[in-house]
C-alpha cells in the first residue's frame, strides 16, 4: 500500500520551569493511505504531542513529517484535527459549525454547505442543521465534530481521544459509527486513546508508545476481519489482542504513575 504519512526521526522537547523535557524521541513511522492506526500509551507518553506535530500545530525539535512526500510545516487543509473536547462554536448552529474549515480557507460556501449537509447526514445528524451546540448531547456534539473534520476536505483525520468524555454506552455506539464512516469515506485515520479495547476494535494497527520520552515500543497489527460489529469485542482473538497490548503497556503505566507521584511530591516540597 502507498504511504500517506511518514515521520523520520521525529522528536520534540519542551521547556518547563527552565528544564528541558523530552516528550518524543526518534519516531520513524509510515502510515498507509486509508489505514486506521491507533496510538496507545500511558499518560505523558507524548500521544497528543505526536498528533499536534503531524498537524503542524507545533514544530518538531528534530526530524520531519511528510504527507504524500511533502513536508508538513503548518496546519493546512489536508489534515484535520478532531479534539477531545468538541470545540464547537456556541454561537454557530450545527451547519455553520460544520463549514468552518472551508470558510477559513475561503472556499465556495454554497458547495461547502452541500458537502457539510451530506457529511451531517453520514454521521446521523440529518435535520439538526439549525440546532445549536447547547441543544445537543455529548455524543451528538462529537458527531458534529467529525462532520466538521470531514467537511474540511482532509484526507487524514487526527483524532485525540474523541470519545473520552462520553459515557460507556455512547462510546461503544460511536466506535461502531466511526468504523462505518471510515469505511465509507476511505480516510486515513490516526486515533489516540487510553482505551485498549477501543484501539483494537477500530484499528488496522496499534502503536504502543513508551513513557517519556515517547518512543515506539511495539507495533501490533490487528488481524481481525472487517467489517467489524460490536459483538467482535466478545471474541477470544479480540481478548488476546487486548491482553497482549495491556501487558506491553502495563510497565509504562506504572512508570508514568511513578513519574507523576515524583512530580507532585517535588511541587509539595517547594
Amino acid at each position, binding site marked *: 500500500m502507498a504511504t500517506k504519512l511518514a515521520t523520520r526521526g521525529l522528536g520534540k522537547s519542551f521547556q518547563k520551569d527552565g528544564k528541558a523535557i523530552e516528550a518524543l524521541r526518534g519516531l520513524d513511522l509510515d502510515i498507509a493511505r486509508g489505514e486506521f492506526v491507533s496510538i496507545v500509551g500511558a499518560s505523558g507518553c507524548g500521544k497528543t504531542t505526536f498528533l499536534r506535530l503531524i498537524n503542524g500545530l507545533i514544530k518538531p525539535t528534530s526530524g520531519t513529517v511528510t504527507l504524500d512526500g511533502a513536508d508538513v510545516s503548518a*496546519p493546512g487543509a489536508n489534515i*484535520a484535527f478532531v479534539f477531545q473536547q468538541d470545540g464547537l*462554536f456556541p454561537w454557530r448552529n450545527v451547519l455553520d459549525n460544520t463549514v*468552518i474549515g472551508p*470558510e*477559513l480557507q475561503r472556499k465556495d460556501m454554497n458547495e461547502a454547505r452541500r458537502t457539510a449537509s451530506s457529511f451531517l447526514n453520514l454521521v446521523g445528524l440529518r435535520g439538526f442543521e439549525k440546532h445549536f451546540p*447547547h441543544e445537543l448531547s455529548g455524543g451528538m456534539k462529537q458527531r458534529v465534530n467529525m462532520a466538521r473534520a470531514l467537511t474540511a476536505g482532509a484526507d487524514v483525520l487526527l483524532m485525540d481521544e474523541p470519545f473520552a468524555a462520553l459515557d460507556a454506552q455512547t462510546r461503544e455506539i460511536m466506535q461502531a459509527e466511526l468504523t462505518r464512516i471510515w469505511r465509507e469515506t476511505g480516510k486515513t485515520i490516526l486515533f489516540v486513546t487510553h482505551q485498549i479495547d477501543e484501539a483494537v476494535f477500530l484499528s488496522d494497527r496499534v502503536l504502543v508508545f513508551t513513557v517519556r520520552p515517547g518512543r515506539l515500543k511495539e507495533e501490533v497489527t490487528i488481524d481481525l476481519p472487517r467489517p467489524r460489529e460490536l459483538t467482535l469485542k466478545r471474541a477470544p482473538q479480540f481478548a488476546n489482542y487486548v491482553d497482549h497490548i495491556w501487558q506491553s503497556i502495563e510497565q509504562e503505566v506504572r512508570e508514568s504513575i511513578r513519574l507523576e507521584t515524583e512530580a507532585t511530591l517535588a511541587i509539595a516540597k517547594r
Partner: protein
Amino acid sequence: MPTSIWRGLLSFGVGAIIWEATARYLDNKLFLVPLGAIFDRFMEMARSGDLAADASVSFIEFIGGFGLAAIVGIGAGIAMSASKRIREFFDPWVSMLYATPTIALGPLFMLALGIGYGSKIALIFLTAVFPILINTVAGLTTTDRVLLEVVRSFGATRMQTYFKVRMPAALPFIIAGLRVAVARALVGVVVAELFGARAGLGFLIFRSAQVFDTAGLWVSVFILAICGVASVEFLKWVEKRMAPWRFQNIEDE
C-alpha cells in the same frame, strides 16, 4: 403570557396596595403621597410641557455620556486586549478608578466644565465607562483555548481568529458590561444634576423637594426607575438572544 409575568404583575399589585394603605395611614404628604396624587401630578406636569423638557435634557445627557462610555470602553478594551504590555500598564488605573466612587468628582467637573451638558456628560461617562472596558478586556482575553486551537488546526489567519472566534466569544461579555453600565449611568444622570443644573429629571427631584412638592419628586423617581428597568431588561433580552448557551443552567431550574 408566561406565569412569571403574571407573578411580576401580582407582585406590583400587592406593592401598590401596601403603598396606598401606608400613605393613607401615615397621612404625611411630605414623605409618601398616594399613587393617585402622583398620577395626577404626572398628568399636570406632562400637560404643561415641563416634564418633556426635563426628560429630554436628561435623555441627551444620558445618551451623550453612555454613548461616549460605550465607544471609549469598547475601543480601549480592544486596545488593551491586543497587548499584554498595554494591559499591564493601564490595569492599576482601571482597577483604581473602577473601585473609586467617581460620582464624588461631580463638584469638580462642575467647577471645570460649568453647569451645562459638558460636566454632566463627563460625569456620566466616568461612572459608565469602566464596567464596559473591563468586560471587553475580559471577553477578549478569556477565549476558550480549545476554540482557538480548532481554528488554528484549520489554518486560520490572525485576523480570522480575531473576527471569527475572539470577537463573537467576547460579545456576550460586552453586552453584560453595557447592562451594568446603564444602571450606573442613570445614577450618574441624577447625581450630576443634583450638583447643579437648570433642567433635567435629577434637577426636578431637587427642585420638587425644595418646594415640598413630594408628588412631583416621585414622578421623577418613577420615570427614572422605569427607564432603568426597561433598558436593563432590554439588554438582558439582547444578551439572551445572542448567547442562549450562557443561560441554559438558569432556565433549567
